[in-house]
């Protein structure tokens, strides 16, 4: 992806993120996450039905990378099964951490394929995914 398209996509999702604002709905599982080395603070809420991601919403204040990654993550994961989501999360983490990954499965999330060049921003790109993983863990425990 060329740098200009990449930046424009991130910027669009930073300035106009999708699904911002939490709903007062008990069916959502919610976690709060903040990055240890910086000051991002996001709340992420996920609604799952029959093993499918029905909705994800978020709120909070965070940097351009964290916020856009949250928004793009939401777009990418809506309607996917939990197994598929796990696969995507694993591949995304591999990409950020410079390991082998499947480009195809990541779709728009590929815009973060050069974040590793700024090592101190890796955590920002991983932030919403860390939150999501916490939620998936909770669900597994409840089973």
């Amino acid at each position, binding site marked *: 992806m060329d740098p200009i398209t990449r930046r424009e996509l991130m*910027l669009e999702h*930073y300035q106009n993120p999708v699904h911002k604002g939490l709903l007062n709905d008990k069916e959502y599982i919610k976690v709060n996450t903040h990055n240890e080395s910086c*000051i991002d603070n996001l709340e992420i809420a996920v609604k799952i039905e029959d093993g499918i991601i029905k909705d994800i919403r978020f709120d909070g204040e965070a940097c*351009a990378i964290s*916020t856009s990654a949250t928004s793009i993550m939401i777009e990418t994961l809506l309607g996917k099964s939990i197994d598929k989501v796990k696969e995507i999360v694993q591949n995304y983490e591999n990409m950020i951490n410079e390991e082998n990954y499947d480009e195809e499965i990541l779709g728009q999330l590929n815009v973060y394929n050069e974040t590793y060049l700024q090592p101190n921003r890796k955590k920002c790109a991983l932030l919403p995914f860390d939150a999501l993983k916490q939620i998936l863990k909770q669900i597994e425990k409840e089973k």
Partner: protein
Amino acid sequence: MNRSDFPMLQNDLIYFDNGATTLKPQTVIDEMVDYYSNYSANAHRGDYDVSLKVDKMYENVRDKVQKLINCAKREEVVFTKGATESLNMIVFGYMKYILKENDEVLITKAEHASNVLPWLQLAKEIGIKIKYIPLDEQHELTLSSLQKSITDKTKVISLAHITNVVGDVRPLEEIGKICKAKKILFVVDGAQSVAHIPIDVQKYNVAFLAFSAHKMLGPTGVGVLYGRYDLLNIMHPLQYGGGMNNLFEIDGTVEYKNIPTRLEAGTPPIAEVIGLGKAIDYLLDIGIDNIHKYEVQLKEYAINKLEQIPNIKIYNKHSQSGIIAFNIDGVFSQDTAVYLNHYHICVRAGNHCAKILKDEFKINNTCRISFYLYNTKAEIDTLVKVLEQSENIFKIVL
């Protein structure tokens, strides 16, 4: 003062994060290397020459601190790990044994976590009440607001001399007078001030003062607790062990040393204390008053220029210190810091350990510029130029 005194400044770097820590002059570094190279023995122990030299060099620094803060006795100076440890000693080694349930401690929402959390914890332990003196619309403390907050139950007022986000200078002399008249203990957090503006603990009626060497050209790992002799003398140590006792028996009989040694259990940070001594020499050579004047000049110069940039919001234009808190409209503070870092300009983004300030500013995060004596107008010009082009910010940070 020469910029060449500071090896860090030889790097291609504009360092505007002096509120977090300051750079070290070569003299301080050399002094510590000299200890490690030429007389690296323990303190208060030996009977041989180099060990005696350690004692002399270490104890000498107490005299230098005494001169810096003008306390009555050198025994009133205790070496600690830093401002945070000093404040914890004040709260848990002294206040815990003096204060009673429902006694009131006055602080403000602009205090650093290290002057808030120990008090909140003590409130949980013994039921004292922590009250916040209301700040004015510029987030600063006024004397009238302070006076109105005092009640019959007020036993302690604990304030930063200079706050670390707003950078306002508290009128210590007047507050000290009020405290004296009302028999209130006046605790001062000097972390942001001791190397920036003169302090006189006797004149200002200060009961306790806390500060860190690393924010005043000195090394990390060491700080100072000053306590008025009669108060310090009944402070309970938070640490027991070697160095602070005269004798002990297995049956539990113990005789402790006098202050300040009683409050310095274990091997102290010897090299760091000696380094702090050199830092004080450096500061007193220039004159703390001159440092303050210079910082205020730098701030005025910077504010005049930053005000011209339309999309920049400054939160503390008027405070009389070297601290500027700002944001670029529509940009998260951390992104601003990353952008400036691209031009080798070091500033800090975040809540600056004063989390409760968000109740006042109605924002969670700012970028903070904090100047010190080696910063220059030319460096400010570079900052301004970079901020003027901030429409490019996302080309850099994304």
